[in-house]
């Protein structure tokens, strides 16, 4: 007979294995994926260099993350570190600065649009329709304006993250229950107090989601710009590996990049849940 007893709980029998069925399935899936990869690598079905064995990739990873091959000077001290961390630092700073600039502008404009229906009706649709356009095509313009250094990459990041943040801030403003705003007005709060004590706390979730999205696109915009025209950064490392046909290194950089990106995204996601 079919059950809808949602209050009933199945009890764990004594002596259940400590790995849940979900974890076991995940291990099996991972094993199958790696196994298939190795088979393809060993069989030479695809060009051997395109699908290097996991061992080769592992070695490249260790070398990438552990082999000190770059001399840096830090506060008067000379250090040798794996070059990757320096490139990572470059990229992270570019993305961070881009997020800060684009985020602040996005938040400010978003709050304004959310609060003022006239301005919103006048301008918001431009932003809405410009949002899903490929920002990388603006890169030549950014180079013209900011040069070939990190500034143009920061500009790419800023441009990319501005749109999701401004749109979620504007939408976030509008979804604040009007009663909360009336409470603020009844206490005669000034604009600054309204923003910091009512609007921003009430908008926490949409803003964090907007920032999460913004972070993702800022990362993509900055990294793609680095692959196009740069001599440093993680994006540069990827295209450099391509140019030198060092496939294991490319895989290693890509894997590390994805892990970092997913990790950053998860952290911000946790922050939105408070």
């Amino acid at each position, binding site marked *: 007979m079919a059950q809808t007893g949602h209050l009933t709980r199945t009890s764990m029998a004594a002596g259940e294995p400590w790995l849940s*069925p979900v974890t076991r399935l995940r291990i099996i899936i991972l094993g199958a994926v790696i196994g298939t990869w190795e088979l393809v690598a060993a069989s030479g079905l695809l060009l051997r260099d395109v699908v290097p064995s996991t061992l080769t990739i592992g070695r490249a990873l260790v070398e990438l993350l552990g082999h000190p091959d770059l001399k840096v000077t830090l506060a008067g001290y000379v250090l040798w570190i794996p070059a990757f961390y320096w490139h990572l630092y470059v990229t992270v700073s570019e993305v961070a600065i881009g997020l800060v600039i684009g985020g602040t502008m996005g938040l400010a404009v978003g709050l304004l649009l959310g609060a003022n229906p006239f301005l919103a009706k006048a301008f918001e649709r431009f932003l809405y329709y410009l949002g*899903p356009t*490929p920002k990388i095509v603006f890169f030549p313009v950014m180079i013209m304006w900011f040069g070939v250094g990190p500034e143009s990459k920061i500009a790419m990041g800023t441009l990319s993250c501005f749109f999701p943040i401004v749109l979620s801030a504007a939408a976030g403003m509008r979804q604040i229950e009007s009663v909360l705003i009336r409470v603020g007005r009844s206490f005669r709060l000034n604009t600054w107090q309204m923003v910091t004590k009512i609007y921003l706390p009430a908008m926490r979730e949409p803003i964090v989601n907007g920032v999460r999205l913004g972070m993702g696109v800022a990362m993509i915009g900055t990294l793609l710009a680095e692959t196009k025209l740069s001599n440093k950064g993680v994006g540069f490392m990827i295209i450099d590996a391509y140019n030198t046909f060092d496939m294991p290194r490319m895989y290693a950089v890509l894997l590390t990049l994805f892990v970092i990106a997913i990790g950053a995204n998860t952290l911000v996601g946790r922050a939105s849940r408070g």
Partner: protein
Amino acid sequence: MSAGATIRREAVPIVFGVACLLALVALIEVLIRMGWINPFIVPKPTDIVMSFERIIMEENILPRFFLTCGEALMASLMLSVAGISIGVLLHRSRIVRLATETWVAAVASAPLVLMYPLFLVIFGRSAWTIIMIAFVSALPPVILKTLEGLSGTRPVLINVGRSFKLTPSQLYWKILFPSALPTIFVGVRLGMIFALINIVGVEFLINFGGLGQLVNELAERYDLPGTYAAICFVILVSVLFFIGTERIERWLRPGT
């Protein structure tokens, strides 16, 4: 208020917005002519407009447009079929869904398009590199939305099906799937938009293809007004695509 007055009132902000935009463009034109802005960094808007004609005539804008569209269509087809099928398969088994859903969500947040140099090695400088990159990077949202739609079926609708003694197959096709369709369409549309963005982006980066490649080529030739004009084309196509898919989505969801 009369209907005419309401229309006028609604139109005012829109007209204001457009007017501001035109005013900004006019201001830029004036500032450049006065020498306050360097015309080698920001070309005169009038120059940009004039180069439109040149671009259309000399740069094969129509074949380029069709190439980009063709790539987008191919990628969209692949992602719809693969994305919905994978979503349906993952949904069938609760344990598979629990094991893999977070992984798919994680992959969705990774900058997959950065793999384009890898695909360059595999497929060479060809349309297939572009299509495959778009396919791979736009797949996760389709899978996730399919899963979301199927799992999000309201329990009361399932109970209605059970009370009418539907077979599991009938329950799936007559209740679960139709209930999930609106969300699935949202996923497909999202996927198509990501695909187009990545297609134009990669065309630009690898200097192959249609509209994206045009921007890159003109930039490399230092044809500044042309570059700006080409960027305008890209924006136009992107906006039209976005609006078009939005209309289709609304048409497919009756009563929404």
